[in-house]
């Protein structure tokens, strides 16, 4: 065995420089080996994730275009203002010369067109370029929420709703399947494979298939519902109807990925010692009590993982939108990432696409932090 001093002398220069002289060589070697092992992954992460994100961050404060001879300029927060500006506004009914309200033919109050205020009106400079996002009646006045970018706001809200619904839905279904399949039955692996199959298929293919399933006239879903109800079911244009498009997309997305999380739950279930169930059985616990006091606490870490993964994946909702609806009908299925791609690449406005990505990053980061805080170890 060679002495530490000899080994130090024989080590390459960069190894000798990397650690303090007095560190034992085996430690130095561990540290060096550690960095060496991490190097390929770090390189890939830096080149394909860190650098692009830093570039997106910088670009989001410019007016960089995808194709343009005009040089990019700093525009400060303009891109973010255009995306996020929201203002309430009270619209008063129109009055005639005597000051009385003007009524429509059907007897309802008549209001001036919003565009009179939001377009080239010197009296309302802060409303310029805004559009109606939503409105409600307050007495004879109408309160209108104006937004600079109605489509992005819809996309943001849709994505948050999508994530909020799909996280418990998909996670819960996956747990249910995992519990059903965590038994020593014959052919259990066949069932596990079947439920896992959609995960292996590309989302593009799945989305295309579900377009046919959701077809408004003779789609599979309408046909089956018609058969079950002996023809009394009226066919629904699932993806063409503003009320059903988003639920349809959620159902299909949950179906596609549920197998993946089922496998994670299964792995979690198998780490729970059988002796705990036996002990609980001896104490007279029923099936529900076993689940509540043995299974669920044992799955705590798995639950955190599953929920965080589903939420973050949900925030990246894109392929289903692109293939199935392109954000329609009437913006009910717009998503943040779809808008980032649509603007950054389609409309060649890289800066706005980058700004959307930065906003998405902040949201995902916040969600991850909050989830970490809520699920922290309490000692």
């Amino acid at each position, binding site marked *: 065995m060679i002495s530490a001093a000899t080994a130090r002398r024989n080590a390459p220069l960069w190894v000798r420089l990397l650690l303090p002289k007095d560190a034992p060589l085996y430690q130095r070697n561990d540290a060096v080996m550690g960095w060496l092992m991490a190097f390929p992954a770090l390189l890939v992460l830096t080149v394909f994730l860190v650098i692009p994100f830093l570039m997106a961050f910088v670009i989001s404060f410019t007016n960089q275009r995808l194709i*343009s001879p005009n040089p990019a300029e700093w525009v400060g927060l303009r891109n973010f203002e255009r995306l996020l500006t929201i203002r309430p506004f009270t619209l008063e009914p129109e009055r005639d010369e005597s000051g009385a309200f003007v009524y429509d033919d059907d007897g309802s109050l008549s209001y001036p067109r919003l565009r009179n205020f939001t377009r080239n009106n010197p009296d309302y400079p802060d409303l310029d370029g805004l559009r109606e996002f939503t409105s409600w009646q307050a007495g004879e006045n109408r309160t209108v929420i104006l937004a600079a970018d109605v489509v992005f706001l819809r996309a943001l809200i849709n994505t948050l709703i999508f994530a909020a619904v799909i996280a418990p839905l998909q996670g819960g279904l996956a747990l249910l399947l995992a519990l059903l399949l965590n038994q020593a039955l014959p052919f259990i692996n066949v069932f596990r494979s079947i439920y896992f199959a959609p995960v292996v298929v590309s989302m593009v293919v799945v989305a295309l298939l579900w*377009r046919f399933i959701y077809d408004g006239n003779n*789609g599979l879903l309408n046909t089956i519902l018609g058969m079950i109800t002996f023809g009394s079911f009226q066919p629904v*244009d699932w993806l063409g109807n503003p009320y059903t498009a988003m639920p349809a997309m959620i159902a299909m997305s949950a179906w596609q990925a549920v197998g993946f999380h089922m496998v994670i739950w299964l792995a979690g279930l198998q780490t729970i010692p059988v002796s705990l169930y036996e002990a609980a059985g001896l104490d007279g616990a029923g099936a529900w009590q076993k689940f509540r006091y043995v299974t669920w606490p044992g799955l705590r870490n798995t639950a955190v993982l599953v929920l965080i993964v589903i939420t973050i994946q949900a925030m990246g909702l894109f392929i289903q939108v692109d293939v199935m609806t392109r*954000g*329609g*009908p*009437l913006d009910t299925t717009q998503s943040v990432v779809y808008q980032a791609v649509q603007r950054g690449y389609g*409309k*060649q406005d890289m800066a706005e696409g980058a700004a959307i990505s930065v906003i998405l990053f902040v949201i995902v980061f916040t969600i991850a932090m909050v989830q970490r805080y809520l699920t922290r170890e309490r000692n």
Partner: protein
Amino acid sequence: MKKALSISILVIMLITFSGLASAQTELSLWYHGAGNETERSILLGIIDDFNASQSDYTVVLEEFPQESYNSSIVAAALAGDLPDIIDVDGPVMPGWAWAGYMVPLQLSEGALDGFLPGAIGEYNGEVYAVGLWDAAVSIYARRSVLEANMIRIPTLDDPWTGDEFDGILETLQATGEFEYALDLGMAWTGEWYPYAFSPFLQSFGGDMIDRSTYLTAEGVLNGDAGVAFGNWWQSLFERGLAPGTSQDGADRETGFIDGKYALQWNGNWAGIGALEAVGDDLLFLPAPDFGSGSTIGAASWQFGISSSSENKEGANAFIEFAIQDEYLAAFSDGIGLIPATAGAAEMSQHYSMGGALEVYFGLSEAQALVRPVTPGYATLALIFEKALADIANGADVQDTLDAAVDEIDQDIEDNMGYGFDM
């Protein structure tokens, strides 16, 4: 010894120089049609003929799948690595010319005489690209269906009027024989919307943008004509005359042939397939006239020259060589496109007198109107597509068109007029 050495050096230099002088310069050509064997063999045929016809240049072909072609060009431009000869889609050309990717062609006098207007890529008063073919759109119909319902068969000179067309749709829908009277192709999202549907808007008297300045869409897209178009467009879906944005792609491909749809708004590229399925009963009818004449979209893929090419002369020579009638006809026979000249049409199988698709050449010649010639087209097209989809789904017509105009005008302002005088 010294003398011998210098002589041998001289000889070597002479050989090298003469070798250089006779070496052919390579011209790179990028093409969007990877995967289509017919297209490839026709193009390679032209390239072989050109390479054999002279000794200065050798054209080398590189193919890309259509979906990734445009991004490949943009990436190459950013990397300073553009090919000599660029293949470019008509409406995209002004953007690339404005960004400095392309330079105007230098063809000999009269080289483009007799070309269909849609095949000539003109921007800022200069020709930047030329196409070997064009495409056109018409209404597919069955003679038997029209006759059974006492519907007049329109001609190029005497198309259906807007009211007449609307009445025909109601009549056909009322027969109950069809799921829908008219298939517009709503399943074909993307460029199909501005290409195929903006002609209806133009026929109403509106347009996607004010073509006199290219600086605003105000009053043109959201004016009275635009709103009239929007109301009619929305009513098509409200009355259940046409399948909406959720139409599935398979129905679009086979719905007319299967008899689900009475009429179909479709391009010449689908004509051969439909003829094989339907036979002589099939008619290709011109677009209706809603008051301001009938138009159809124009301009398909064309050839141009990159600004970074060091051999522009050679590139021009190749393009001039490629636009001979025989090659135009070869492409037409191979992949069914409309040849860009009357001479080539006469030589072609489908577009000559009595050919199955002859009517399309007349349509292209008489009604073709290129999509707005502005570098802002890419953005304009997406805004227009979204507006039409929203209106079809029941959005308020005036509000939707106003919002589209605001977005278009904002984009033009952000781009400092896209090179047009503000």
